[in-house]
């Protein structure tokens, strides 16, 4: 099997099996993907940096291991696209921002280390909204990424580079981060699978912080099983992140291999529909609920009134934390420095550097957060938002007393055209309406494809939400739904994507 176009369409599980059995070498697989990147990424712009040499060296090491008869891990030799928010020793890490242009991190993020230790081949770093702030990847300082379903549309964000890489077969696996939906919403609009694990499941060490109490790394893939295999590689306790969960990783792979919703109670939240939701999205979502019912699930309607406040609370908490997290970018120690010509003081250099280095959305959020935390306003803004957060957590807790999982559309609309919402932050923020409550409560959620919206032929995502630490339920339900849909469609949804 040396045909590049068939290699790149394999799932990660198939690729790993082929490498393990000797049908394919890791080098062949890596070369096929590098060739694909060469072929299509000028159009898609999923990658900010391709590490050709590093990837091939990793692949050669895998092949050498196999030649020595060593046991290979479940994803050994499988290529992956890494969101440019994780530090990579010796490889540029920009977080989609000019302010880190030219910075070469001296250390690997824990996720990077775990990927390398599992012999996952890191192809390069993917595009993203600057500092993960955005829902379209248009906020990248390095230009937008196109949605492989329609290059004039957004691939979601902030992890649009990772979702586009998957949907355009440039990589079978990717890593994203999800602060308010940055893994799930891109997955939804590109017809791929994305999981935001329980907060603390995946180490944040070396993941450049946007909003520390919300940020969570997670797996992106084209199938539920592939996501589970990747989940198992990157999750687990890390002593370098004190918010990391010190408990065994839930049995996600086992769950993905044994998909079922038989006898499960599935909640549908009243608040996740109505104004702002595209008709075709609601239609596909309702069909997915019908499929769940057919598969043996009991559907329970839920009322979570606090969810209506989630977006407002999020846009106080996330900017507040970001205003503090981004204070370190002062041009003194690393990254961009502008104005250091001997005529400016250190503080002026910092100011000039930030003016040049941060994009408008980042500046907007720094200002919002600085204001929300300032004395006299703290209680009204940050304090109130934290109270809303508690209410949302309680609504989830109450809901999970009567259901095993909750489902919703992942995002209210399909991929919108590049530029459409660029000047309307509020419209952009609405893309995360259904995903944000999960970040605020810290529990886990997945997005997987549930069809194409009839009116525009673009992918629609189904969101599955599970309680904290019960990430395996996402995979159990997700695998069952995925199997039912693939059977119904006769093939995976991505086969309907246009060839680039």
């Amino acid at each position: 099997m040396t045909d590049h176009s068939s290699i790149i369409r394999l799932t990660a599980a198939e690729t790993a099996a082929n490498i393990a059995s000797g049908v394919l070498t890791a080098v062949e697989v890596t070369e096929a993907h590098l060739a694909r990147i060469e072929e299509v990424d000028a159009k898609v712009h999923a990658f900010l940096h391709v590490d050709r040499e590093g990837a091939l060296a990793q692949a050669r090491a895998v092949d050498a291991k196999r030649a020595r008869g060593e046991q290979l891990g479940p994803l050994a030799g499988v290529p992956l696209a890494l969101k440019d928010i994780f530090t990579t020793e010796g490889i540029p890490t920009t977080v989609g921002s000019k302010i880190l242009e030219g910075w070469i991190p001296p250390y690997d993020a824990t996720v990077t280390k775990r990927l390398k230790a599992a012999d996952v081949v890191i192809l390069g770093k993917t595009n993203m909204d600057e500092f993960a702030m955005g829902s379209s990847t248009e906020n990248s300082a390095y230009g937008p990424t196109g949605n492989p379903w329609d290059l004039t549309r957004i691939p979601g964000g902030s992890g649009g580079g990772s979702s586009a890489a998957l949907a355009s077969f440039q990589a079978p696996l990717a890593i994203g981060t999800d602060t308010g939906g940055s893994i799930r919403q891109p997955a939804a609009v590109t017809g791929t699978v994305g999981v935001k694990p329980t907060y603390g499941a995946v180490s944040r060490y070396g993941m450049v912080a946007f909003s520390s109490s919300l940020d969570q790394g997670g797996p992106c893939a084209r199938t539920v099983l592939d996501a589970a295999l990747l989940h198992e590689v990157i999750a687990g306790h890390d002593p370098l992140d004190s918010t990391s969960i010190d408990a065994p990783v839930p049995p996600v792979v086992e769950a993905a291999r044994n998909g079922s919703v038989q006898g499960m109670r599935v909640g549908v939240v009243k608040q996740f529909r109505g104004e702002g939701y595209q008709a075709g999205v609601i239609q596909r979502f309702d069909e997915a609920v019908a499929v769940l019912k057919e598969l043996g699930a009991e559907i329970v309607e839920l009322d979570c009134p606090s969810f209506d406040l989630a977006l407002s609370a999020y846009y106080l908490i996330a900017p507040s934390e970001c205003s503090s997290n981004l204070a370190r970018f002062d041009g003194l120690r690393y990254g961009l420095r502008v104005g250091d010509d001997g005529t400016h003081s250190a503080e002026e250099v910092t100011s000039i550097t930030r003016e040049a280095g941060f994009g408008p959305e980042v500046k907007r959020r720094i200002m919002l957060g600085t204001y929300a935390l300032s004395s006299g306003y703290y209680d009204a803004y940050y304090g109130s938002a934290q109270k809303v957060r508690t209410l949302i957590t309680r609504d989830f807790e109450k809901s999970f007393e009567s259901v095993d999982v909750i489902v919703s559309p992942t995002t209210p609309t399909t991929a919108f055209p590049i530029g459409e919402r660029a000047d309307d932050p509020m419209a952009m923020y609405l893309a995360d309406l259904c995903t944000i409550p999960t970040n605020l409560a810290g529990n886990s959620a997945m997005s997987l494809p549930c069809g194409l919206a009839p009116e525009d032929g673009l992918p629609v995502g189904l969101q599955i939400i599970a309680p904290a630490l019960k990430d395996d339920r996402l995979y159990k339900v997700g695998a069952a739904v995925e199997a039912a849909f693939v059977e119904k469609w006769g093939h995976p949804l991505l086969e309907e994507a246009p060839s680039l």
Partner: protein
Amino acid sequence: MTTTTDELVSYEDALATYDPVMGLEVHVELGTKTKMFCGCSTELGAEPNSQTCPTCLGMPGALPVVNAIGVESAIRIGLALNCEIAEWCRFARKNYFYPDMPKNFQTSQYDEPIAFNGYLDVQLEDGETFRVQIERAHMEEDTGKSLHVGGATGRIHGASHSLLDYNRAGIPLIEIVTKPIEGAGERAPEVAKAYVAELRELIRALGVSEARMEQGQMRCDVNLSLRPHGREKFGTRSETKNVNSLRSVERAARFEIQRHAAVLNSGGTIIQETRHFHEDTGSTTSGRVKEEAEDYRYFPEPDLVPVAPSRAWVEEIRAELPEQPLARRNRLSEEWGITAFDMQSILNAGAIDPIVATIDAGADSASARKWWMGELARSANESGKALDELPITPEQVARVTALVTAGELNDKLARQVIEGVLAGEGTPDEVVEKRGLKVVSDDGALTTAVQEAIAGNPGIADKIRGGKVAAAGALVGAVMKATRGQADAARVKELILEQLGVSEG
């Protein structure tokens, strides 16, 4: 623009009109091996920026992890200050910009300190005890150091550039804040000094830091305001930063009282500002003016989980606390039969622990005090060392006193033995051996020397025979000279009287 003035009113006049209120903030650098939130070494004196990592450099993506020893030290300090220990507390971010602070926020604690509501009793020079109420003790991290190059003063003003050393960034600090100290009146500066001194003793006794002020391991901010006598409301305070010796604490408080009084007397207003203390002139000058309360935008540190010390752990730490230094000094004063004033001198000399150890090694307390406060204190002073840095152990001092008690050495010889030990000539016994320093108490040898002395000083001998026993001193001196000081003086005197057939008294 500041309205500072160098005009002062006399201290007495200031106190006649005004009542000082002080607040003292002391930062203690803990002596942990590693930093508060990463594994970097805290060793002093290393190459600049050699003890750093992504976390303490504030690299993108790096995260903090709490040093458990740091938390334990904070609890020890809190308990020793009679504080309540929080069952649950959090770190908070204090957001402000400064080049030597890598993250541009300091990880500190805000409204949820680990220890709060305590007190520390301090003793003033006349032995009176003053209770200083403690508001809180909280954990935080130190900043790096800026070195401003090219200016005359070493301050940023006039410098051509600055160098940054982040070795200190992230070293654990405990900030101990008093409640407003009221009612000290004219003794306010003395109370301030006594408080910082007592706190230093306490920190050392707890073993959590060496608290060497000259090395910046303990730094004090003196906040001071005046109010007219009889008024309850506090006046506007000045904040004199980084006052780094006990004497300076006292002088800074005194200076500020005189300066505030001058401003107030002339109808001016005190502005809330940061001030710098100058050791050379004993005065303070204006730093930056706080136009309004600085807004640090505190919020709970989301990168760290709350600290929830179990009650069992807290009680375990409490049970292991050493005796409070003041209580210990009071106990020792009683045991040794000395005054509070004498004890204060011993404390100031840093001699308490050496004396106790010497007594523990078998010496009597008077001898132990005599050597440490006399010969050894002088030697330490001359060599610019602390007593516990001298190359002699309490056991060796105890051995010398034992030799004196046994009559094998007299004071003069004992001094020579100690000198020999300090000079690295070996143990006391070795020095005695090598230098041949033994009291000659062998009656045979002494009798010969005594007879020679009597023969050589017939006049004096006659006086003694005539009843002037006191004149024997001159003959003793002659014998001592003849034996190069090695004779047992008491025995010599006995022999002289015996030879001359005179009985004492």
